[in-house]
């Protein structure tokens, strides 16, 4: 039997998995790495803040209210004398968990519906996608207000509310992916090998559409974060007792011209930085996962 390549040649060639390749490309993207580092820093801060901060996020100290930034209070204190730095990092908890857990809900609804619609086709597809269209056309804010009045203002409600309005994008994306993948030869080959429909969806169709989904998810994290902040700002987000950047901005709004603009500035900067970081990371992932850009 003919040797295809000499054994030595094979042994010397470095081998990467598909995801390994993508990771190497991501590592080379400086902007994406900066984004990733900032996100990780925020996450670490959000985890360790209760152990390192001398102040509790809800500890009021009316004697020390509206202090400017100082070594005591790095970013100053708000109108109730709460430490802004502590609240800001606690706010990262809210933002990051909304950002991440919302995606889980989006994926948990969007992937099954999108992949069923795409792979079964016909009437099922029609039915599911019309449902998606209805959800898409329904005003998000209205749905969230509705859900909020039913579910209350806990952070879990935020996950659910934002997740329930945002899953349609994932469903549409994965359906489109699967529709084009379905025509590929390896799917016919899998059918010819006797693979069942479920096997083809789970083993072949979904893994092959993961790339674009990961990218969509990374871009929809900042959207969820911003949505939470916006909802909290207009007072229908998380309960005011939970620190959230949106709530902090609303609190600071009254103080802009009352000599304490820093109350609104820092959370606003935090939102901008975190959203930019996710956007950079998403850009980097999109480039890394697109094999056409492979060098």
């Amino acid at each position, binding site marked *: 039997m003919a040797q295809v390549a000499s054994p030595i040649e094979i042994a010397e060639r470095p081998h990467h998995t598909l995801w390994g390749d993508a990771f190497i490309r991501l590592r080379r993207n400086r902007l994406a790495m900066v984004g990733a580092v900032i996100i990780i820093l925020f996450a670490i801060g959000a985890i360790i803040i209760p152990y390192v901060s001398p102040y509790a996020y809800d500890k009021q100290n009316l004697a020390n209210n509206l202090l400017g930034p100082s070594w005591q209070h790095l970013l100053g204190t708000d109108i109730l004398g709460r430490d802004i730095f502590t609240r800001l990092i606690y706010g990262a908890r809210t933002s990051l968990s909304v950002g991440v857990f919302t995606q889980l809900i989006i994926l948990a609804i969007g992937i099954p519906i999108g992949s069923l619609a795409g792979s079964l086709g016909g009437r099922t597809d029609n039915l599911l996608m019309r449902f998606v269209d209805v959800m898409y056309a329904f005003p998000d804010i209205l749905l969230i207000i509705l859900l909020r009045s039913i579910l209350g203002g806990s952070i879990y409600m935020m996950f659910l509310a934002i997740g329930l309005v945002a899953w349609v994008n994932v469903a549409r994306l994965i359906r489109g992916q699967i529709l084009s993948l379905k025509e590929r*030869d*390896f799917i016919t080959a899998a059918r010819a090998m*006797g693979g069942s429909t479920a096997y083809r969806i789970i083993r072949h169709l979904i893994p092959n559409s993961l790339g674009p989904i990961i990218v969509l998810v990374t871009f929809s994290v900042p959207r969820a974060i911003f949505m939470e902040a916006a909802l909290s700002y207009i007072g229908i987000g998380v309960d005011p007792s939970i620190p959230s950047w949106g709530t902090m901005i609303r609190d600071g709004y009254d103080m802009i011209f009352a000599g304490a603009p820093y109350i609104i500035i820092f959370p606003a900067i935090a939102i901008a930085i975190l959203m930019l970081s996710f956007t950079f990371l998403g850009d980097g992932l999109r480039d890394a996962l697109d094999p056409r850009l492979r060098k």
Partner: protein
Amino acid sequence: MGNLLEVRDLTTHFFTQDGVVKAVNGISYTVDEGETVALVGESGCGKTVGALSILRLIPEPPGKILSGEILFQGKDLLKLSRQEIQQVRGAQISMIFQEPLTSLNPVLTIGRQLSEALQAHKKIDSQTARDEAIKLLQMVGIPQAERRVKDYPHHFSGGMRQRVMIAMAISCRPKLIIADEPTTAVDVTVQAQLLEMIRGFTQELNTSLILITHNLGVVARYAQRIYVMYAGRIVEYGPTAEVFHQPYHPYTVGLLKSVPRLDQPKRERLQSIAGQPPDLIYAPEGCAFQPRCVYCDGGQCSIQEEKLIEISPGHFSSCVLAKGGVLIWQKR
């Protein structure tokens, strides 16, 4: 030897926006146990659709198998339920596809795809399946199989991927392998190796083979019988040697003349068949080959419905001109 597979009057059409594409029009053929049968014809003559129809792999919609019977070991595959046909696919009838580059899932390792193909039909644990996968890769001549099972398809060359596809096709010891132009996409040096390998396996396992190809050289060497297809119909069939020696259909004559032969006079030019295969939406009346046929005199050709007539024992043709056994194309 009994018939392993008998296709009777199979008709598969595609219902597209532009009209009904009559890809396969009432073809019938048989494959005996252990036999290699070739389906030959130009691109777009319905070879692949005819083969895909056996395993009901036609995309529906737009395709639809309108009529016919596909008897495999006496059972009509067209009447099986979805679960039942899944049990046949891969286990009893397997396929080797034309494009090895795209027939493997790019995100799964080779070993995984092989062992999952095994586990789809056999009740074995993943460790056994893995060992079996390595053994299969060794059988198809992949060096360092233990290492290579962990690789992804993009680490393999086209020829090696086709070896993997062959390994997958023989993994469950099927009764019938359908090879759809298995060597079209690989280069000539590998073609011969692959075909020899496929033949080795079919002989070893007493597997029947349907070889779909447009390469007549391949047919002459490997197939016992040959079916020539044109415009979704079988126009001639018979034992390979006989069809090559004395073709009864002008289309077969054209095909044979367009292949270079070692025994032909050096000066003689290769001939091609003029014109294009017909649009399968608007199939012409009568003989579909008539517009391109150089022997047609315009008489019965455009009126008479094509029908296969036994001209010599076991050798059929649909050409009305060959009916009497007087062959115009043999007169020089």
